[in-house]
């Protein structure tokens, strides 16, 4: 996993209600409820491919009160979890 690795979401539908995102994975047919941070990331990745560096920049811009290391750690977990779920593809 390098800053140059690119990520994109698989074919999904997103709906947001308050702090919850509901994601429908069109490939697997699974429906997921995500927290607002994961939801915003995965929806952004369904619109365009992003590098790890760009994802970090997006998170830093959205969550100004959070430290860089917390964001790094969150992104690491996010990528691992969503690749495992099949919602995220690395290129």
């Amino acid at each position, binding site marked *: 996993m390098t800053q140059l690795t690119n990520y994109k979401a698989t074919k999904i539908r997103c*709906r947001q*209600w*308050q702090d*919850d995102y*509901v994601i*429908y994975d069109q490939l697997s*047919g699974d429906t997921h409820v995500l927290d607002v941070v994961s939801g915003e990331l995965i929806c952004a990745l369904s619109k365009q491919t992003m590098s790890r560096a760009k994802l970090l920049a997006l998170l830093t811009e959205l969550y100004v009160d959070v430290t860089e290391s917390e964001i790094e750690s969150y992104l690491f977990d996010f990528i691992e979890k969503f690749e495992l779920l099949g919602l995220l593809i690395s290129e």
Partner: protein
Amino acid sequence: MSNLPISNIASLSKSQLQQAIIKGLDFKVGCFNVRLVSPIVELVTHLHHLYGANELLAKEDFIDFHVQLSSPSTLRRYFRPQVNFFLDGYAPFKPLPYVQASALFEWGLNWCIASHANQYLIIHAAVVERNGQAFILPGTPGSGKSTLCAALVNQGWRLLSDEMTLLSTHDGQIYPVPRPISLKNQSIDVIKKRSPQSVFGQIVNDTVKGTVGHFCPPELSVQLGENPVFAAKLIFPKYKQGAETELSTLSKSKALLRAAGDCFNYNLLGVQGFDSLSGLVEQCACYEFHYSNLDEALILFTELSHQ
């Protein structure tokens, strides 16, 4: 255009109805057209009691479901008689004891709709309407949805269905399929005591669901069987003996996940199912509802119907 009144099943005498069913009785059930062929006398009584308001079809009308109920023609019919259900000549179920013919007709028709009507997202839920608002009540067996539905209908609510909510994937409206309400075990006596005037069909004991009785839908609900309505409330009821009446707001994301689990064809419809269900959840206020007292439940639902 003909000015003749539309004929319904009640316009036939019992013997005419029997003759018609032997040859094939074509009638409307909500937005579906059904042809029933059967020599079974108990079905005549069932239709006579519970389907009187259903419109008879013209010869040229398209039939959605060609249904047949008959006894196997083996020697067995003399010892332990049974009944089979067929759709287009195919028997989806094992035969049941002959005395359960009317229940098998109802269950079989449920299966026909749930397995074939994929122009709708089908939620395992009762649906009733008042003041132009449809209330959807999803629930697994034992959740008390049918009892609550029957009690509401007896209070003048319009019945769209006690079993299947048909959400159109095209226009987002709920399409009615008003049929007899299936009550089980203690629920039958509960509703009979509350509404002694209510009409029940044959009470069938020892089915796989216990004792089953079908309660006649109101005539007006059947007559409005082709008029869809938009949903306003999505309420997940749970009957529990001794429980306080409690209505709590459910987040839309949780409501969507729970309703998806109650659908017959959510996975089959794919993204269309998700779009339809998320559209429904968007337009509805979503709640969890715990109850044990039907009177309190009715008051609360009446208040909700004014919101």
